[in-house]
C-alpha cells in the first residue's frame, strides 16, 4: 500500500486503491542525494543540465497487461500465424468492400463484430517491489515472412514489459524503415493486402491514431487489426485516441509529462488537460498538503484498441533514468521524442489491477467495441 490510484469516468469514481512504490523510487532518492555538486561549476550547458531537478521527478506513465496476451493468447491482436494471414487475404479478396466495427475474429479470435471484446491476458504478474518493468516476458510470439524468410517480430522489436505504440503509420514506418518489416507490399499490391509493415505494426499495437490523423493508419494494419479500411469506417471516431492525437506517447508506450511548472506559484496558472499527457498538480508553501497528484486521460478509442491487445492490468509511473540516458549517448536536457526518445526511464511506482481497465459490457443497442467512454486516472503520492 503506497500512494493511491483513482479511476474516474466523468464525475463518477469507479475505483480507488493504494499503489506500490518499487525499488526504483529509493534508488532515485539516493541518486538525488549524491549527485556531484561539482557539476554546477562546469560551464558546458549539457553537463550542468544534469542538475536540473526535473530530471529526477516523475516524467511518464505507461500501461501493461499479462504476458500471455503477448505470446500465448490465440485471440488477441498480437496473435498471428499463417492461417490467420491466409484468412485475411481471402477475406480481403472477397469481402473488401464491407466494413466491420471490431477486430477480425471468425475462427481466429473471439467473434467480435461490434460487440465488446474480452481479451485473453492470462494472469498478470504479481506485485513485486523489486520490479523494473510492469510485466516480464512480453515479446510477441508472431513470426512471419519479412523479406522472404520467416522472422520473429520479437527478434527485431523485443518486448519491453508494457504496451507499445506502433500503430500510427509515421511511427510504424519510421521504426521499421531499416528492418525486414519495411515492405508496404504484399503479393505486389501496395497496402491492399497485409504487408510485412502492416503485419508487424498490427501485432505490436497498441494505441490508436488520433482523430486528426485518421487517414494515416497503414491500410494493411487497419485491415488486420480492425478488419476494414480505416478510411471506410463510419464509426471511426469512436476508436481514435488521445495519445497519438497530441503525440504524447513514444513508440515504447511512455506517456510524457506535459506540465512541469509551478502550480500555485504562477499567476493565472491553469492545470493542463489530462488529454494532453501526464499532468501534475500539488500545493505549495503554507498550503502545502504534501500531496502530489498526477492525472492522465485515456480516450474511449485508446481503451477500445488496447483492449484488442490484452487490455490494461498494469499502470506504472516512471522517472528518468539519468545513468541509462547518459550511457545511451544522450545529453540533457532530454527533449521528449516519439520516435527516438532520448529519455530512458526507471520504474518508480506501479499499480496492478485485478480487473481489465478496458472492461465494458454490451447494452444491446450500443454494443461495446464502439462504446468505450473516456477515463481519467488520478495517481496521488502523499509526502506528509
Amino acid at each position, binding site marked *: 500500500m*503506497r500512494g493511491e490510484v483513482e479511476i474516474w469516468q466523468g464525475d463518477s469514481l469507479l475505483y480507488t486503491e493504494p499503489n506500490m512504490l518499487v525499488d526504483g523510487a*529509493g534508488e532515485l*532518492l539516493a541518486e538525488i542525494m549524491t549527485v556531484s555538486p561539482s557539476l554546477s561549476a562546469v560551464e558546458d550547458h549539457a553537463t550542468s543540465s544534469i542538475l536540473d531537478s526535473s530530471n529526477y521527478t516523475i516524467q511518464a506513465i505507461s500501461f501493461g497487461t499479462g504476458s500471455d496476451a503477448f505470446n500465448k493468447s490465440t485471440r488477441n491482436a498480437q496473435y498471428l500465424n499463417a492461417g490467420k494471414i491466409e484468412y485475411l487475404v481471402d477475406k480481403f479478396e472477397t469481402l473488401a468492400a464491407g466494413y466491420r466495427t471490431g477486430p477480425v475474429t471468425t475462427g481466429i479470435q473471439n467473434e467480435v463484430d461490434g460487440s465488446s471484446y474480452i481479451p485473453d491476458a492470462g494472469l498478470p504478474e504479481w506485485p513485486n517491489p523489486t520490479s523494473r518493468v510492469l510485466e516480464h516476458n512480453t515479446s510477441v510470439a508472431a513470426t512471419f515472412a519479412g523479406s522472404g524468410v520467416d522472422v520473429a517480430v520479437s527478434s527485431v522489436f523485443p518486448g519491453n514489459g508494457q504496451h507499445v505504440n506502433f500503430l500510427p503509420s509515421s511511427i510504424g514506418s519510421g521504426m521499421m524503415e531499416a528492418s525486414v518489416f519495411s515492405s508496404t507490399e504484399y503479393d505486389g499490391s501496395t497496402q491492399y493486402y497485409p504487408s510485412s509493415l502492416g503485419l508487424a505494426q498490427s501485432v505490436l499495437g497498441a494505441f490508436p491514431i488520433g482523430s486528426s490523423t485518421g487517414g494515416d493508419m497503414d491500410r494493411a494494419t487497419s485491415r488486420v487489426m480492425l478488419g476494414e479500411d480505416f478510411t471506410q469506417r463510419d464509426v471511426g471516431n469512436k476508436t481514435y485516441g488521445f495519445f497519438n492525437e497530441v503525440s504524447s506517447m513514444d513508440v515504447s508506450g511512455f506517456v510524457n509529462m506535459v506540465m512541469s511548472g509551478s502550480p*500555485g506559484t504562477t499567476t493565472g496558472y491553469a492545470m493542463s488537460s489530462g488529454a494532453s499527457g501526464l499532468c501534475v498538480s500539488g500545493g*505549495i508553501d503554507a498550503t502545502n498538503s*504534501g500531496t502530489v497528484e498526477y492525472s492522465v486521460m485515456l480516450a474511449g478509442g485508446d481503451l477500445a484498441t488496447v483492449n484488442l491487445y490484452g487490455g490494461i492490468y498494469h499502470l506504472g509511473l516512471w522517472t528518468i533514468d539519468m545513468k541509462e540516458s547518459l550511457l545511451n549517448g544522450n545529453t540533457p536536457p532530454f527533449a521528449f521524442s516519439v520516435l527516438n526518445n532520448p529519455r530512458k526511464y526507471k520504474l518508480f511506482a506501479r499499480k496492478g489491477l485485478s480487473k481489465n481497465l478496458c472492461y465494458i459490457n454490451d447494452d444491446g443497442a450500443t454494443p461495446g467495441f464502439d462504446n468505450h467512454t473516456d477515463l481519467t486516472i488520478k495517481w496521488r*503520492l*502523499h509526502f506528509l
Partner: protein
Amino acid sequence: MKNFTEELGINGHLTIIKQYNDGQEEVVFDDHNIIVSGMGVGLSYMFTGSGSNSVLDYQIDRFQVGVSGPPTGGATSAIYQLSGPCTEDEYGAGSNLFIAVKDQITNNTYTTLAAAQIPANKRTRIKDSSVRYTLVIDEEACNGIQRGGNDMSINEVGLLMKNPTGNISADRPLLVAYRTFSDIIKTSDFSLIFRWTLNF
C-alpha cells in the same frame, strides 16, 4: 494512510564514535534515527516542481548538534528543529567545521540557526538506495559549551536539506532527520564521528 516516507520505508541508522587522539575508537551510540516530516515537505516541493530547479538544493548537505535533547513531547516525526541547537560560537572558532548561519524553515516560519557543512566527499552512496553521511566534530569543535553558567553536553543531532524552496538570496535549510542520544561532554581529547546511513 501511511505517508510517502513511511511507505517507501525511508529509515536511518546512526552510529556515534569517539575517536581519541591516539587513534583509539569507542562506539558510544548505535541505533536507528527519526525521519521527520521535513523530508516529505522537501521532496514534495521537488515532485510538484514548485521548489528549487536544482537537484543540489534537495541534498542533505549540513547538520546541527544541540544540547537540549530530547525535545519536549518526545522525539517524533513532527519536530522541525533541534531543542537546543549550538550557536556559531559554540561550534568553536578553531575547528575545521564550516559553519553557516541561515534562516531555517521551521513550522511555516523561519528561524536563524547555525549548521555545519557536510563536505560532498562525506556523502557516499553505499548501496543502490543507501547513502552514508560521515559527520566529524573534530577535537577543537563544541568544547566547553556553557549556558547560564552551566556546562552543557551534546545530546542531539539533525540532518538538514539544503534549500528545497529554492530561495535565491540565501539557502533556507530544512530538518529532515533527527536523533537524541546520551549526554556527551565534548573535550579536546577526542573527535566525535557520526556515521549516519539513510536507506531510501
